[in-house]
Protein backbone atom coordinates (compact mmCIF):
# COMPACT_ATOMS: atom_id res chain seq x y z
CA UNK A 1 0.00 0.00 0.00
CA UNK A 2 1.27 3.45 -0.83
CA UNK A 3 1.07 5.80 2.14
CA UNK A 4 0.58 8.78 -0.15
CA UNK A 5 -2.45 7.33 -1.94
CA UNK A 6 -3.96 5.07 0.70
CA UNK A 7 -7.51 6.49 0.48
CA UNK A 8 -7.61 6.04 -3.29
CA UNK A 9 -6.49 2.46 -2.74
CA UNK A 10 -9.21 1.94 -0.14
CA UNK A 11 -11.92 3.63 -2.25
CA UNK A 12 -10.82 3.24 -5.90
CA UNK A 13 -14.43 3.63 -7.09
CA UNK A 14 -14.21 7.39 -6.37
CA UNK A 15 -11.46 7.78 -8.95
CA UNK A 16 -8.66 10.31 -8.87
CA UNK A 17 -9.54 12.74 -11.64
CA UNK A 18 -10.00 16.48 -11.12
CA UNK A 19 -13.47 17.58 -10.03
CA UNK A 20 -15.61 20.00 -12.05
CA UNK A 21 -16.35 23.44 -10.58
CA UNK A 22 -19.62 23.70 -12.55
CA UNK A 23 -21.82 22.27 -9.73
CA UNK A 24 -20.53 25.10 -7.51
CA UNK A 25 -21.47 27.94 -9.85
CA UNK A 26 -24.43 26.80 -11.95
CA UNK A 27 -27.94 28.03 -11.01
CA UNK A 28 -29.44 25.13 -13.00
CA UNK A 29 -27.41 22.57 -11.09
CA UNK A 30 -28.54 24.17 -7.83
CA UNK A 31 -32.21 23.82 -8.83
CA UNK A 32 -31.58 20.11 -9.39
CA UNK A 33 -29.93 19.81 -5.99
CA UNK A 34 -32.99 21.40 -4.38
CA UNK A 35 -35.34 18.99 -6.11
CA UNK A 36 -33.27 15.80 -5.88
CA UNK A 37 -31.45 16.29 -2.59
CA UNK A 38 -32.95 18.86 -0.26
CA UNK A 39 -36.58 17.98 -0.98
CA UNK A 40 -35.86 14.24 -0.79
CA UNK A 41 -33.45 13.34 1.98
CA UNK A 42 -33.47 13.63 5.76
CA UNK A 43 -32.12 16.96 7.04
CA UNK A 44 -30.84 17.56 10.54
CA UNK A 45 -32.69 20.51 12.09
CA UNK A 46 -31.51 20.54 15.69
CA UNK A 47 -31.52 18.81 19.05
CA UNK A 48 -34.75 17.60 20.59
CA UNK A 49 -33.63 19.01 23.97
CA UNK A 50 -33.94 22.50 22.47
CA UNK A 51 -37.67 21.95 23.09
CA UNK A 52 -37.74 20.69 26.69
CA UNK A 53 -41.35 21.55 27.64
CA UNK A 54 -44.83 21.01 26.21
CA UNK A 55 -45.63 23.96 23.97
CA UNK A 56 -41.97 24.78 23.19
CA UNK A 57 -41.50 25.29 19.48
CA UNK A 58 -38.92 26.27 16.93
CA UNK A 59 -39.40 27.31 13.32
CA UNK A 60 -36.56 26.52 10.97
CA UNK A 61 -36.48 28.18 7.57
CA UNK A 62 -35.12 25.84 4.89
CA UNK A 63 -34.94 27.72 1.58
CA UNK A 64 -33.42 24.77 -0.27
CA UNK A 65 -36.42 22.63 0.62
CA UNK A 66 -38.75 25.51 -0.21
CA UNK A 67 -40.42 25.76 3.18
CA UNK A 68 -40.23 26.62 6.87
CA UNK A 69 -40.80 23.86 9.38
CA UNK A 70 -42.42 24.19 12.81
CA UNK A 71 -41.11 21.72 15.39
CA UNK A 72 -43.37 21.68 18.45
CA UNK A 73 -43.63 19.54 21.57
CA UNK A 74 -47.15 18.55 22.55
CA UNK A 75 -48.65 17.92 25.97
CA UNK A 76 -48.24 14.20 25.24
CA UNK A 77 -44.45 14.77 25.17
CA UNK A 78 -44.14 14.11 21.43
CA UNK A 79 -42.35 16.51 19.11
CA UNK A 80 -44.00 16.87 15.72
CA UNK A 81 -43.14 18.81 12.58
CA UNK A 82 -45.39 20.84 10.29
CA UNK A 83 -45.05 23.29 7.44
CA UNK A 84 -45.42 26.82 8.78
CA UNK A 85 -48.40 27.56 6.58
CA UNK A 86 -51.90 28.51 7.65
CA UNK A 87 -54.82 26.66 6.04
CA UNK A 88 -56.74 29.92 5.66
CA UNK A 89 -54.90 32.03 3.08
CA UNK A 90 -51.41 30.64 3.29
CA UNK A 91 -49.79 33.04 5.74
CA UNK A 92 -47.05 31.76 8.01
CA UNK A 93 -48.72 30.67 11.26
CA UNK A 94 -45.72 31.52 13.45
CA UNK A 95 -44.25 34.88 12.45
CA UNK A 96 -40.60 34.16 11.70
CA UNK A 97 -37.73 36.32 12.86
CA UNK A 98 -34.94 35.20 10.60
CA UNK A 99 -33.62 31.71 10.05
CA UNK A 100 -34.64 30.24 13.39
CA UNK A 101 -37.52 31.40 15.53
CA UNK A 102 -38.08 30.03 19.03
CA UNK A 103 -41.21 30.34 21.10
CA UNK A 104 -43.35 28.75 23.75
CA UNK A 105 -47.04 28.38 24.37
CA UNK A 106 -48.29 27.30 27.79
CA UNK A 107 -51.42 25.91 26.17
CA UNK A 108 -49.33 24.12 23.50
CA UNK A 109 -51.12 25.88 20.67
CA UNK A 110 -49.96 28.25 17.96
CA UNK A 111 -52.08 31.07 16.61
CA UNK A 112 -51.84 32.71 13.22
CA UNK A 113 -51.34 36.44 13.68
CA UNK A 114 -53.29 37.26 10.53
CA UNK A 115 -56.83 36.18 11.53
CA UNK A 116 -56.33 34.26 14.75
CA UNK A 117 -56.67 30.66 13.57
CA UNK A 118 -55.48 28.40 16.38
CA UNK A 119 -53.68 25.07 15.86
CA UNK A 120 -52.83 22.43 18.45
CA UNK A 121 -49.34 20.90 18.82
CA UNK A 122 -50.81 17.83 17.10
CA UNK A 123 -51.47 20.02 14.05
CA UNK A 124 -55.27 20.01 14.42
CA UNK A 125 -57.10 23.24 13.64
CA UNK A 126 -58.69 24.09 17.00
CA UNK A 127 -60.51 27.32 16.42
CA UNK A 128 -61.46 29.71 13.64
CA UNK A 129 -62.84 33.14 14.52
CA UNK A 130 -66.25 33.75 12.87
CA UNK A 131 -66.24 30.14 11.76
CA UNK A 132 -69.95 30.32 10.87
CA UNK A 133 -69.18 32.77 8.05
CA UNK A 134 -67.24 30.13 6.10
CA UNK A 135 -69.25 27.96 3.73
CA UNK A 136 -70.32 24.35 4.10
CA UNK A 137 -67.38 23.13 1.99
CA UNK A 138 -65.00 24.24 4.76
CA UNK A 139 -64.27 21.48 7.26
CA UNK A 140 -62.07 22.28 10.24
CA UNK A 141 -61.24 18.59 10.57
CA UNK A 142 -59.50 18.63 7.18
CA UNK A 143 -57.60 21.87 7.64
CA UNK A 144 -54.94 21.16 10.20
CA UNK A 145 -51.28 21.99 9.65
CA UNK A 146 -49.58 20.02 6.88
CA UNK A 147 -47.27 17.52 8.59
CA UNK A 148 -43.60 17.06 7.76
CA UNK A 149 -41.87 13.72 8.40
CA UNK A 150 -39.80 13.89 11.57
CA UNK A 151 -37.51 11.25 13.00
CA UNK A 152 -34.95 11.22 15.82
CA UNK A 153 -31.44 9.79 16.11
CA UNK A 154 -29.36 10.21 19.29
CA UNK A 155 -31.42 13.28 20.20
CA UNK A 156 -31.00 14.94 16.77
CA UNK A 157 -34.18 15.92 14.95
CA UNK A 158 -34.28 15.13 11.24
CA UNK A 159 -37.06 16.23 8.91
CA UNK A 160 -37.91 15.09 5.41
CA UNK A 161 -40.23 17.24 3.28
CA UNK A 162 -40.95 14.52 0.70
CA UNK A 163 -44.56 13.38 0.72
CA UNK A 164 -43.30 9.81 1.11
CA UNK A 165 -39.60 9.59 2.02
CA UNK A 166 -37.72 6.97 0.03
CA UNK A 167 -36.05 5.66 3.19
CA UNK A 168 -36.54 5.75 6.94
CA UNK A 169 -34.03 7.84 8.86
CA UNK A 170 -32.42 4.64 10.11
CA UNK A 171 -31.99 3.34 6.56
CA UNK A 172 -30.69 6.73 5.44
CA UNK A 173 -28.04 6.94 8.17
CA UNK A 174 -27.08 3.26 7.87
CA UNK A 175 -23.65 2.49 9.36
CA UNK A 176 -23.15 6.15 10.25
CA UNK A 177 -25.71 5.78 13.04
CA UNK A 178 -23.75 2.92 14.59
CA UNK A 179 -20.42 4.72 14.31
CA UNK A 180 -21.51 7.53 16.65
CA UNK A 181 -23.92 5.62 18.89
CA UNK A 182 -23.24 6.16 22.56
CA UNK A 183 -21.40 9.48 22.37
CA UNK A 184 -22.77 11.61 25.26
CA UNK A 185 -24.40 14.30 23.10
CA UNK A 186 -27.13 14.81 25.69
CA UNK A 187 -24.88 15.50 28.66
CA UNK A 188 -22.73 17.91 26.63
CA UNK A 189 -25.66 20.21 25.93
CA UNK A 190 -24.27 23.68 26.68
CA UNK A 191 -24.36 24.80 23.07
CA UNK A 192 -23.21 28.06 21.48
CA UNK A 193 -24.47 29.06 18.03
CA UNK A 194 -22.90 31.40 15.47
CA UNK A 195 -24.36 32.10 12.08
CA UNK A 196 -23.74 34.18 9.00
CA UNK A 197 -24.72 34.32 5.37
CA UNK A 198 -21.88 33.56 3.02
CA UNK A 199 -21.73 34.61 -0.63
CA UNK A 200 -20.75 31.14 -1.77
CA UNK A 201 -22.19 27.80 -2.81
CA UNK A 202 -22.99 25.45 0.06
CA UNK A 203 -20.41 22.95 -1.22
CA UNK A 204 -17.63 25.56 -1.15
CA UNK A 205 -18.38 25.96 2.56
CA UNK A 206 -18.63 22.19 3.09
CA UNK A 207 -15.34 21.56 1.31
CA UNK A 208 -13.41 24.20 3.25
CA UNK A 209 -14.29 22.44 6.51
CA UNK A 210 -14.00 18.87 5.23
CA UNK A 211 -10.22 18.55 5.16
CA UNK A 212 -7.30 19.10 7.53
CA UNK A 213 -4.84 20.08 4.78
CA UNK A 214 -5.54 23.77 5.60
CA UNK A 215 -4.71 23.62 9.31
CA UNK A 216 -1.05 24.61 8.99
CA UNK A 217 -1.84 27.61 6.78
CA UNK A 218 -5.33 28.91 7.59
CA UNK A 219 -5.02 28.36 11.35
CA UNK A 220 -1.42 29.59 11.67
CA UNK A 221 -3.00 32.50 13.58
CA UNK A 222 -5.23 30.85 16.16
CA UNK A 223 -3.51 27.46 16.43
CA UNK A 224 0.12 28.30 15.60
CA UNK A 225 1.65 25.33 17.36
CA UNK A 226 -0.78 22.78 15.97
CA UNK A 227 0.21 20.79 12.92
CA UNK A 228 -1.88 18.39 10.92
CA UNK A 229 -0.62 14.84 10.91
CA UNK A 230 -3.25 13.90 8.38
CA UNK A 231 -6.47 11.93 8.30
CA UNK A 232 -6.88 8.48 9.81
CA UNK A 233 -9.67 5.91 9.71
CA UNK A 234 -11.50 7.33 6.72
CA UNK A 235 -14.82 5.52 6.44
CA UNK A 236 -17.39 6.16 3.73
CA UNK A 237 -20.89 4.99 4.59
CA UNK A 238 -23.38 5.40 1.76
CA UNK A 239 -23.69 9.16 1.21
CA UNK A 240 -22.12 9.90 4.63
CA UNK A 241 -18.43 10.03 5.55
CA UNK A 242 -16.16 10.21 8.56
CA UNK A 243 -12.48 10.30 9.50
CA UNK A 244 -10.18 11.14 12.38
CA UNK A 245 -8.32 14.44 12.23
CA UNK A 246 -4.91 14.08 13.86
CA UNK A 247 -2.94 17.04 15.09
CA UNK A 248 0.28 17.44 17.00
CA UNK A 249 0.81 20.12 19.61
CA UNK A 250 4.29 21.54 19.59
CA UNK A 251 4.53 23.96 22.45
CA UNK A 252 3.11 24.65 25.85
CA UNK A 253 -0.09 26.71 25.90
CA UNK A 254 -0.07 30.50 26.04
CA UNK A 255 -0.46 32.00 29.55
CA UNK A 256 -4.22 32.61 29.45
CA UNK A 257 -4.87 29.33 27.62
CA UNK A 258 -2.87 27.50 30.30
CA UNK A 259 -5.11 28.88 33.05
CA UNK A 260 -8.23 28.09 30.99
CA UNK A 261 -7.09 24.50 30.43
CA UNK A 262 -6.68 24.03 34.16
CA UNK A 263 -10.20 25.35 34.80
CA UNK A 264 -11.98 23.21 32.22
CA UNK A 265 -11.00 20.91 29.40
CA UNK A 266 -13.25 22.82 27.04
CA UNK A 267 -10.73 23.79 24.40
CA UNK A 268 -10.19 21.61 21.40
CA UNK A 269 -6.42 21.92 21.64
CA UNK A 270 -6.04 21.04 25.29
CA UNK A 271 -4.88 17.60 26.40
CA UNK A 272 -7.24 15.34 28.34
CA UNK A 273 -7.41 12.10 30.31
CA UNK A 274 -10.06 9.35 30.08
CA UNK A 275 -12.15 8.71 27.00
CA UNK A 276 -15.87 9.23 26.41
CA UNK A 277 -15.66 8.21 22.74
CA UNK A 278 -17.44 5.17 21.33
CA UNK A 279 -15.05 2.29 20.54
CA UNK A 280 -15.52 2.87 16.81
CA UNK A 281 -13.86 6.29 17.10
CA UNK A 282 -10.06 6.46 17.30
CA UNK A 283 -10.00 2.65 17.62
CA UNK A 284 -6.19 2.53 17.74
CA UNK A 285 -6.03 5.08 20.59
CA UNK A 286 -3.68 7.34 18.68
CA UNK A 287 -2.21 10.00 20.92
CA UNK A 288 -2.46 12.62 18.15
CA UNK A 289 -6.21 12.09 17.68
CA UNK A 290 -7.83 15.55 17.84
CA UNK A 291 -11.43 14.99 16.74
CA UNK A 292 -13.64 12.88 14.53
CA UNK A 293 -14.76 14.87 11.48
CA UNK A 294 -17.86 13.52 9.78
CA UNK A 295 -20.48 14.58 7.28
CA UNK A 296 -24.13 13.60 7.47
CA UNK A 297 -25.20 14.03 3.88
CA UNK A 298 -25.96 16.51 2.59
CA UNK A 299 -25.23 19.54 4.73
CA UNK A 300 -24.27 18.67 8.32
CA UNK A 301 -20.73 18.30 9.60
CA UNK A 302 -20.58 16.63 13.00
CA UNK A 303 -17.32 16.61 14.97
CA UNK A 304 -16.81 14.83 18.27
CA UNK A 305 -13.92 14.85 20.67
CA UNK A 306 -13.34 14.40 24.39
CA UNK A 307 -15.70 16.69 26.29
CA UNK A 308 -16.66 18.76 23.28
CA UNK A 309 -18.53 18.35 20.04
CA UNK A 310 -19.42 20.81 17.31
CA UNK A 311 -21.38 21.02 14.09
CA UNK A 312 -21.35 23.07 10.94
CA UNK A 313 -24.44 23.27 8.78
CA UNK A 314 -24.64 24.76 5.32
CA UNK A 315 -28.13 25.79 4.27
CA UNK A 316 -28.26 26.83 0.63
CA UNK A 317 -30.15 30.04 -0.14
CA UNK A 318 -29.09 30.35 -3.79
CA UNK A 319 -26.44 28.76 -5.99
CA UNK A 320 -23.96 31.28 -4.61
CA UNK A 321 -25.43 32.06 -1.19
CA UNK A 322 -25.40 29.92 1.96
CA UNK A 323 -26.48 30.24 5.55
CA UNK A 324 -23.70 28.84 7.74
CA UNK A 325 -24.41 27.80 11.31
CA UNK A 326 -21.63 26.71 13.64
CA UNK A 327 -22.54 25.17 16.98
CA UNK A 328 -20.16 24.31 19.79
CA UNK A 329 -21.22 22.10 22.70
CA UNK A 330 -19.62 21.40 26.07
CA UNK A 331 -20.82 20.23 29.47
CA UNK A 332 -22.69 22.96 31.33
CA UNK A 333 -20.36 24.78 33.74
CA UNK A 334 -21.03 24.63 37.47
CA UNK A 335 -18.74 27.46 38.60
CA UNK A 336 -17.94 30.99 37.48
CA UNK A 337 -14.33 29.96 36.71
CA UNK A 338 -15.51 27.10 34.50
CA UNK A 339 -17.86 29.47 32.69
CA UNK A 340 -14.89 31.79 32.13
CA UNK A 341 -12.78 28.94 30.72
CA UNK A 342 -15.60 28.01 28.31
CA UNK A 343 -15.71 31.65 27.18
CA UNK A 344 -11.99 31.47 26.41
CA UNK A 345 -12.36 28.22 24.45
CA UNK A 346 -15.41 29.49 22.55
CA UNK A 347 -13.63 32.73 21.66
CA UNK A 348 -10.67 30.85 20.20
CA UNK A 349 -12.98 28.52 18.29
CA UNK A 350 -14.94 31.51 16.93
CA UNK A 351 -11.69 33.03 15.72
CA UNK A 352 -10.72 29.75 14.02
CA UNK A 353 -14.13 29.75 12.30
CA UNK A 354 -13.50 33.34 11.19
CA UNK A 355 -10.29 32.02 9.63
CA UNK A 356 -12.14 29.09 8.02
CA UNK A 357 -14.88 31.24 6.50
CA UNK A 358 -12.37 33.81 5.20
CA UNK A 359 -11.60 31.85 2.02
CA UNK A 360 -15.12 30.92 1.01
CA UNK A 361 -16.38 34.05 -0.74
CA UNK A 362 -13.03 34.43 -2.52
CA UNK A 363 -13.27 30.82 -3.71
CA UNK A 364 -16.77 31.41 -5.07
CA UNK A 365 -15.82 34.58 -6.93
CA UNK A 366 -12.75 32.92 -8.38
CA UNK A 367 -14.70 29.83 -9.48
CA UNK A 368 -17.35 32.02 -11.11
CA UNK A 369 -14.69 33.52 -13.37
CA UNK A 370 -14.46 30.08 -15.05
CA UNK A 371 -10.73 30.71 -15.50
CA UNK A 372 -10.33 27.25 -13.99
CA UNK A 373 -13.08 24.72 -14.58
CA UNK A 374 -11.53 21.87 -12.60
CA UNK A 375 -10.23 21.50 -9.07
CA UNK A 376 -7.44 19.13 -8.08
CA UNK A 377 -7.83 17.07 -4.93
CA UNK A 378 -5.08 15.26 -3.07
CA UNK A 379 -5.55 11.96 -1.24
CA UNK A 380 -6.36 13.54 2.15
CA UNK A 381 -9.13 15.57 0.48
CA UNK A 382 -11.12 12.38 0.00
CA UNK A 383 -14.11 13.66 1.97
CA UNK A 384 -14.50 16.45 -0.60
CA UNK A 385 -14.18 13.97 -3.47
CA UNK A 386 -16.75 11.67 -1.89
CA UNK A 387 -19.09 14.65 -1.41
CA UNK A 388 -18.81 15.64 -5.07
CA UNK A 389 -19.40 12.05 -6.25
CA UNK A 390 -22.46 11.61 -4.01
CA UNK A 391 -24.01 14.94 -5.06
CA UNK A 392 -23.47 13.95 -8.69
CA UNK A 393 -25.16 10.58 -8.11
CA UNK A 394 -28.22 12.19 -6.50
CA UNK A 395 -28.54 14.93 -9.11
CA UNK A 396 -28.23 12.48 -12.00
CA UNK A 397 -30.36 9.75 -10.41
Amino acid sequence: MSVEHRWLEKYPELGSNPISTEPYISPDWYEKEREKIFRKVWLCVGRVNELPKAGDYKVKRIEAAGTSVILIRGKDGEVRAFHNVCAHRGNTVVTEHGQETYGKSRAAVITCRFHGWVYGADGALRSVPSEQRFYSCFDKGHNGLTPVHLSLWEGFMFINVAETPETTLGEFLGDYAEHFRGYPFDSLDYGFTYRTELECNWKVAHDAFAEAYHVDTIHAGSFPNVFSTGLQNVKLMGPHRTCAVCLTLDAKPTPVAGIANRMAGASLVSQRGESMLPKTINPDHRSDFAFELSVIFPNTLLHVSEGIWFTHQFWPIAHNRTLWEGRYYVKAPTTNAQRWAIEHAMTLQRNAWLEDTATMEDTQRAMQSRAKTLQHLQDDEILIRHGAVVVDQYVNA
Partner: protein
Amino acid sequence: MTEPTLPPAFADLAPFLDWALPTADERQTKRRHASREGLKAFYDALLPRLEAILAEVDKYPLGGLPESHHAIYDMALALAEVAPHVELYGGSPGVPYAFEEGRFIAVHGAQPTWRGLHPMAGI
Protein backbone atom coordinates in the same frame (compact mmCIF):
# COMPACT_ATOMS: atom_id res chain seq x y z
CA MET B 1 -27.21 51.85 35.69
CA THR B 2 -24.84 52.35 38.58
CA GLU B 3 -21.12 52.89 38.04
CA PRO B 4 -19.19 49.61 38.12
CA THR B 5 -17.21 49.06 41.28
CA LEU B 6 -14.38 46.76 42.31
CA PRO B 7 -13.84 44.76 45.49
CA PRO B 8 -11.12 46.51 47.56
CA ALA B 9 -8.47 43.85 46.79
CA PHE B 10 -8.85 44.63 43.08
CA ALA B 11 -9.05 48.44 43.32
CA ASP B 12 -5.81 48.77 41.33
CA LEU B 13 -7.69 47.59 38.22
CA ALA B 14 -9.87 50.72 38.25
CA PRO B 15 -8.09 52.28 35.21
CA PHE B 16 -9.44 49.37 33.13
CA LEU B 17 -13.09 49.54 34.20
CA ASP B 18 -14.04 50.47 30.64
CA TRP B 19 -13.45 46.77 29.85
CA ALA B 20 -16.04 45.69 32.42
CA LEU B 21 -18.68 44.78 29.84
CA PRO B 22 -21.28 42.12 30.64
CA THR B 23 -21.97 40.64 27.20
CA ALA B 24 -19.80 38.81 24.66
CA ASP B 25 -20.96 41.19 21.90
CA GLU B 26 -19.87 44.27 23.87
CA ARG B 27 -16.49 42.77 24.72
CA GLN B 28 -15.87 41.77 21.11
CA THR B 29 -16.79 45.25 19.84
CA LYS B 30 -14.54 46.88 22.44
CA ARG B 31 -11.63 44.66 21.43
CA ARG B 32 -12.15 45.24 17.70
CA HIS B 33 -12.03 49.00 18.18
CA ALA B 34 -9.18 49.06 20.70
CA SER B 35 -5.65 50.17 19.83
CA ARG B 36 -2.74 47.75 19.92
CA GLU B 37 -1.37 49.65 22.92
CA GLY B 38 -4.74 49.54 24.65
CA LEU B 39 -4.99 45.77 24.23
CA LYS B 40 -1.47 45.21 25.53
CA ALA B 41 -1.92 47.48 28.56
CA PHE B 42 -5.18 45.73 29.50
CA TYR B 43 -3.64 42.27 29.01
CA ASP B 44 -0.55 43.13 31.06
CA ALA B 45 -2.66 44.53 33.89
CA LEU B 46 -5.16 41.65 34.01
CA LEU B 47 -3.03 38.58 33.44
CA PRO B 48 -1.21 38.66 36.81
CA ARG B 49 -4.59 39.03 38.57
CA LEU B 50 -6.57 36.48 36.56
CA GLU B 51 -6.23 33.52 38.91
CA ALA B 52 -7.03 35.71 41.93
CA ILE B 53 -10.15 37.02 40.16
CA LEU B 54 -11.33 33.49 39.30
CA ALA B 55 -10.76 32.38 42.91
CA GLU B 56 -12.67 35.42 44.17
CA VAL B 57 -15.70 34.93 41.88
CA ASP B 58 -15.80 31.25 42.75
CA LYS B 59 -16.76 32.21 46.31
CA TYR B 60 -20.19 32.64 44.74
CA PRO B 61 -22.33 30.20 42.80
CA LEU B 62 -22.63 30.47 39.02
CA GLY B 63 -25.49 32.85 38.30
CA GLY B 64 -25.34 34.25 41.84
CA LEU B 65 -22.48 36.70 41.52
CA PRO B 66 -23.22 39.85 43.59
CA GLU B 67 -23.17 43.17 41.78
CA SER B 68 -19.97 44.12 43.63
CA HIS B 69 -18.18 41.36 41.68
CA HIS B 70 -19.67 41.85 38.22
CA ALA B 71 -16.92 44.21 37.09
CA ILE B 72 -13.95 41.95 37.90
CA TYR B 73 -15.68 38.99 36.30
CA ASP B 74 -16.55 41.01 33.20
CA MET B 75 -12.92 42.13 32.98
CA ALA B 76 -11.69 38.52 33.25
CA LEU B 77 -14.09 37.62 30.43
CA ALA B 78 -12.72 40.56 28.42
CA LEU B 79 -9.24 39.12 28.95
CA ALA B 80 -10.46 35.84 27.38
CA GLU B 81 -11.57 37.92 24.38
CA VAL B 82 -8.31 39.90 24.20
CA ALA B 83 -5.73 37.21 25.02
CA PRO B 84 -5.49 35.56 21.56
CA HIS B 85 -4.74 38.96 20.03
CA VAL B 86 -1.78 39.60 22.32
CA GLU B 87 -0.59 36.00 22.62
CA LEU B 88 -1.14 34.78 19.06
CA TYR B 89 -1.92 37.63 16.63
CA GLY B 90 1.08 39.88 17.23
CA GLY B 91 -1.01 42.46 19.07
CA SER B 92 -3.48 43.02 16.22
CA PRO B 93 -6.99 44.12 17.35
CA GLY B 94 -8.53 42.10 14.52
CA VAL B 95 -8.27 38.39 13.72
CA PRO B 96 -5.69 38.29 10.88
CA TYR B 97 -6.73 36.84 7.51
CA ALA B 98 -10.28 36.39 8.74
CA PHE B 99 -13.87 36.77 7.59
CA GLU B 100 -15.58 40.10 8.40
CA GLU B 101 -16.22 39.79 12.13
CA GLY B 102 -19.22 42.12 12.07
CA ARG B 103 -21.12 39.62 9.89
CA PHE B 104 -20.76 36.74 12.41
CA ILE B 105 -23.85 36.64 14.64
CA ALA B 106 -23.45 35.08 18.08
CA VAL B 107 -26.87 33.90 19.24
CA HIS B 108 -25.73 34.19 22.88
CA GLY B 109 -23.99 37.51 22.21
CA ALA B 110 -26.40 39.76 24.12
CA GLN B 111 -26.58 37.63 27.29
CA PRO B 112 -24.89 38.98 30.44
CA THR B 113 -22.36 36.15 30.81
CA TRP B 114 -22.26 36.28 34.62
CA ARG B 115 -25.84 35.02 34.73
CA GLY B 116 -24.58 31.59 33.64
CA LEU B 117 -27.57 31.03 31.38
CA HIS B 118 -27.73 28.34 28.75
CA PRO B 119 -26.31 30.03 25.62
CA MET B 120 -29.57 29.48 23.74
CA ALA B 121 -31.76 30.79 26.58
CA GLY B 122 -33.89 33.86 26.16
CA ILE B 123 -33.99 33.95 22.39
